[in-house]
């Protein structure tokens, strides 16, 4: 991949360019959801809007994804300390919790549908499906990243290097991001209903 030497000794910026690039990308994901949530607000203000409660699974999934984020955090801490077993354990745990999040979201959609909030019904329900669906797509990307982390943790010989730490940290930043994003979206939808 990149063969370009990315850090120069005269660079004042302490931030790794790949990390910086990730932050820039996150800004564009934020804009995407800002677009959706402001569309939600505008549409709601226009009336003919059905109000309903979020399914319980959405709250459970929020807890699960926060726990998953914590696992990633502990995994990286263990990695830095050279604790191989804990590093691997927490990484797997994070991936499993990530999967559980997806299952809970799916259950949440089923509950919504069973409760009469169909995807093609009132736009208020459609928005909840669309927003949580697009978020889930971003979580899927995050799970893929976590799986790569797990794979690398188990296939490579354990060694603490700067390069690997940066990779791990970049993966973690994205995972924390989709975590916080869900908390925001859930809070937003509860507050707007």
């Amino acid at each position, binding site marked *: *991949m*990149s*063969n*370009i*030497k*990315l850090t*120069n000794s*005269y*660079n004042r*910026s302490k*931030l790794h*360019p*790949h990390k*910086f*690039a990730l932050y*820039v*990308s996150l*800004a*564009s*994901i934020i*804009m*995407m*959801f*800002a*677009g*959706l949530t402001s*569309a939600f607000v*505008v*549409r709601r203000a*226009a009336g*003919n*809007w059905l109000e309903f409660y979020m399914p319980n699974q959405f709250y459970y999934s929020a807890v699960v994804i926060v726990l998953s984020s914590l696992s990633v955090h502990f995994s990286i801490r263990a990695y830095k300390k050279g604790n191989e077993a804990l590093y691997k354990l927490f990484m797997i745990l994070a991936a499993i919790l990530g999967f559980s999040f997806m299952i809970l979201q799916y259950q949440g959609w089923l509950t919504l549908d069973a409760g009469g909030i169909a*995807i*093609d019904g*009132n*736009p208020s329900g*459609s*928005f909840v*499906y*669309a927003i949580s669906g*697009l978020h889930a797509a971003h979580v899927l990307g995050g799970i893929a990243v976590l799986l790569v982390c797990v794979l690398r943790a188990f296939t490579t010989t354990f060694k603490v290097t700067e390069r690997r730490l940066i990779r791990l940290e970049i993966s973690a930043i994205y995972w924390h991001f989709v975590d916080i994003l869900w908390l925001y979206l859930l809070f937003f939808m509860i507050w707007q209903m």
Partner: protein
Amino acid sequence: MSEVLVKNYDTEKLIKESGYDDHFHEHHHGDKYQSNFIMTYIFSMDHKIIARQFLITGMIWALIGAAMSIIFRLQLGFPDSNMAWLKPLLGKWINMDNGVGTLDPNFYYALVTMHGTIIVFMVLTAGLSGTFSNLLIPLQLGARDMASPFMNMLSYWFFFLSSVIMFYSLFIATGPFSGGWTGYPPLSALPQASDGSGAGATLWIVSLVFFVVSVLLGGVNYITTVLNLRTKGMSLWRMPLTIWAFFITAIIGLLSFPVLASAFFLLTFDRSLGTSFFLNEIVIKGQILDYAGGSPILFQHLFWFLGHPEVYIIILPAMGLTSEVLSVHARKPIFGYRAMVISILAIAFLSFIVWAHHMFMAGVNPFISNIFVIFTLIIAVPSAVKVFNWITTLYGGNIRLNTPMLFAIGFVSLFISGGLTGIFLGNSAIDIQLHDTYFVIAHFHIVMGVAAFFGMFAGIYHWYPKMFGRFMNETLGKIHFWGTMIGAYAIFWPMHYTGLAGVPRRYYKFDIFDAFGQFTELNMFITVSAAIVFGLQVLFVINFFRSIWFGRKVKSINPWGANTLEWTTPIHAGHGNWPGNLPTVHRWAYDYGKDGYEFIPQHVPVSEDESEVH
């Protein structure tokens, strides 16, 4: 008259002795990915090759998009003529009746739609910003390549994929999307709304989603490279204005394109899952549809939240290229460098809070319109600052009237002409008369269509020696310029009058409107002008490709006597751009005519007797 001095310096020696050693060439794997034809020219990760890929793909699209405009101009200029001769090209889209061929009205709408989509996205976004951001950001900043060459390659290939899908949509049985380049629902949301709203619209949406991905991958790279990979001494305030323009363009793109993706996401829900985000109580062909509660205005808000910044995504790179070309060929520092940067920033900021001026007549609350009117008119301030500075840069300059310079001056002319009509259209009251007329067509074609093309041409003629190691033919270039300059005004100037008279845009023919009969000859004149201008662009393309092999060779590394770093690389710069050390920067890029010296490049150290140092 004081004598013009020439600064003595030896670039090779300077870079060798005082350059920055980043140990780049000690990593022998650095050149590995260019070891065979496929990796060098096709799946290349070298920013210079990717720039050329963007440029040539953009040129192909420009020819297709322009040819479409000629076909619908034929319809508008000569609505009663026999178009049977186009049958071999357009096939079933020419309706035959007793040997007389007419253009299918549905296909007319498809042509208008695709012309807009292609020129706005494929040519003036990817072809302009993609080409020159890629070429110049690493070269002018003294970087080996982009922050992530791999992502950069992906950016091109997503654009390519998007292009293939869009191109394919031109050939499907129901025709390409025909609901206007803005893709407003319900035409874009209901497959049964028109021929092009079915598979054509699906392909259009899919293609543009890949296009957004390409823009984002490119943008992340441009921003990261500008902020992280500048060579030693290249502070932000020493960057050439080209880089400032590309940098801010990338930021605008990164913040606005995702919102378009959101709009397409919801649109796809409406198309496939039966939701009603943008649809409300619709009857088609006597059939009442099951949609309720949606708002098509919502789509317009989301679309124009991208759509307006998009015009600055198109025009800012052209402005940057123009600033650089004007300064180099006027042999003068750009007037008001900081004011130029600040006006770019101001334009970028304002671009996000004026989108509803595209929707004054769409049912937006008139009181909200007032706010958008005010911000829209404020854009005139930074724009005027820029125009003033370009003209003062030219004032008293030792001007070389070569092709790139002519196009840069042409850009300024067009930007003024088109900008002035923007002040008319920015007023919501005047917009009641002018909206959706040819006045709007004339305005935006001059200010961001032709002007952006002129910026692009200035850039191509100026940096062609850097891209291909040869010059383009100057005589053909001048014919290209004068023909296009006069032709562009001949096409769009009359449209102001038809627009003021209320002639609506996007109409297939006007034979039932007696009032517009007076414009029949004018429309013929516009069409003939457009055909001639199209011929001149073909001439440009011929010149471009011919010069790759037969152009006059570049003999020295700095043929224009320019100050920026790209002219310190070898004529055919290899991977990593500089063979040894990276050049270090000691001054800004605009030391022209300083202390009697004609020009002092950025990598030349400051001597003790210099009057001022930027």
